[in-house]
């Protein structure tokens, strides 16, 4: 959905998006990296299942929620990319996991 003006500028940072390697650039937010990699939508809504992508890029709209290193519903626009980061886009309603061990 976006493209870098100078594709070689900035140190490459490899992250994992839904199990696949994506090369971001140092200093980018996770949301920026996903937009530049064309990984849109970032999520489907838990209510109607509609696709969504970042809207404000400043931490206000909460449309860019993704799972980062196991933590769900993180604002992707507020977190800079880090090498080896595991990002998962969110496509269904999360279920509460009940620990059945008795």
């Amino acid at each position: 959905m976006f493209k870098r003006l100078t594709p070689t500028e900035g140190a490459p940072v490899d992250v994992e998006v839904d199990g696949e390697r994506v090369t971001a650039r140092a200093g980018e937010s996770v949301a920026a990296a996903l937009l530049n990699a064309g990984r849109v939508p970032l999520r489907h809504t838990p209510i109607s299942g509609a696709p969504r992508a970042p809207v404000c890029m400043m931490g206000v709209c909460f449309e860019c929620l993704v799972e980062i290193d196991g933590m769900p519903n993180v604002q992707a626009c507020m977190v800079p990319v880090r090498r080896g980061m595991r990002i998962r886009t969110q496509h269904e309603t999360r279920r509460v996991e009940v620990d059945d061990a008795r």
Partner: protein
Amino acid sequence: MHAEADVLVIGAGAAGMAAAATAAELGLRTVVLDEQGAPGGQIYRGITAVTAQMAERLGPDYRHGRTLANALSASAASVQTDTTVWDVDAALNVATLCDGVARQVRARHLIVATGAIERAVPVPGWTLPGVMFAGAAQLMLKTASSVPAGRVVLAGNGPLLLLVANQLLEAGADVAALVETTRTADMLAGAPHLPRALGAFGYLAKGVAMMRTLRRARVLWITGATGLAVIGEQRAEALQVQTARGSERIEADVVLLHAGVIPNTQLTRLMRLEHVWDETQVSWRPRVDAWGRSSDERISIAGDGAGIGGARVAEAGGRLAALDAATALGRIDVAERGRRGAPLLAEAHRHLRIRPMLDAMYRPPHWIMNPPDETIVCRCEEVTAGEIRRMTKLGCRGPNQTKFFSRCGMGPCQGRICGPVVAAILAAENRLSPQEVGAYRIRPPLKPVPLAAIATLAATDGTPEPSRKT
């Protein structure tokens, strides 16, 4: 981090950077908190990290932010970045979250500098991927040196729309169209304010230069547009507009919407400060005096969060709030505050001369805030304008009632986006004034906080303060 600060500044944008540097210069123990990884706020976003090439591209107004960032870093103020404020209690204990750890810092005087947010533009289809706020595209330029791929259509009104169109064009993006809702009547409404605006001639000259650039580039430029709607199934494919010539469909890969910016009142609402309706700017703002002091004498508001004035007014406002805080804390006397404040008040006044014209010309059109029934208003909980209207038939008069009936405003964004739209619909349906309709009641946490972080905070904090919340 100090457990207590004389002056705690929330937000390190234009106002916050200026406020913190000034407070520290006055010998006050100063802490400034910001959610981003570096100072700058949104206008000067990325100012400490931006490449020389991009800084050049973004122009001298943007590069001015370096002066503020340098002064802040040279000052004795403690700058805490990556720090989210999620609550402030009645004793001015400010609860923060940084790297998963919750902490509290007590403020003797609080300066809120949380700036502005973009006003929602709830047109049909605005939830589709590919639709963003215009300011968001500018942030992609500032932070990631990136521009929208494919055909870009910008739509709405306001000086930022024009600026972003220019910046994208100059950066080589495929700007297919600029669709302004501004009518000739709006331009005429701005005309009486022109003599005053001439006192801020620099802004006018920039506006004219931007228009010339767009004309030269032969960008399709529509004015007086109504009935905006984004068309698409899984993503934006086109923008539908109504013009004097009829209905037009403009193909687009990315649609950038904008209808001005409004004060970010989330924190000031949480603190139950008094707010006033600003009919000129069509938004709520906290009530403040000339120095930024709010209805709570221990709390000041500086910058766009106290009413939209732009970066230079915010900068002066930050310094004024710091001088005022120093007076409140007994560091300087009222005469000293007056001496140091006079040139800053004059500076703010000079930059504000352009505002009445901009506010009159770029008033958000009534129809944008009252969208067709099928339009989603609350993006988080997917509540439509029609559902809000139906709830008025059940007797709902305020946004806290529609929230109760429908969860509208109860999603992750906590009503930041839909609040003003819901209020506008309720006002129109019930024929009430904005004051009668009111606004969402904001409660902590202001942003999601992991339960574990709150638990550790509770374990380390033996003296809980009485809550002001009801």
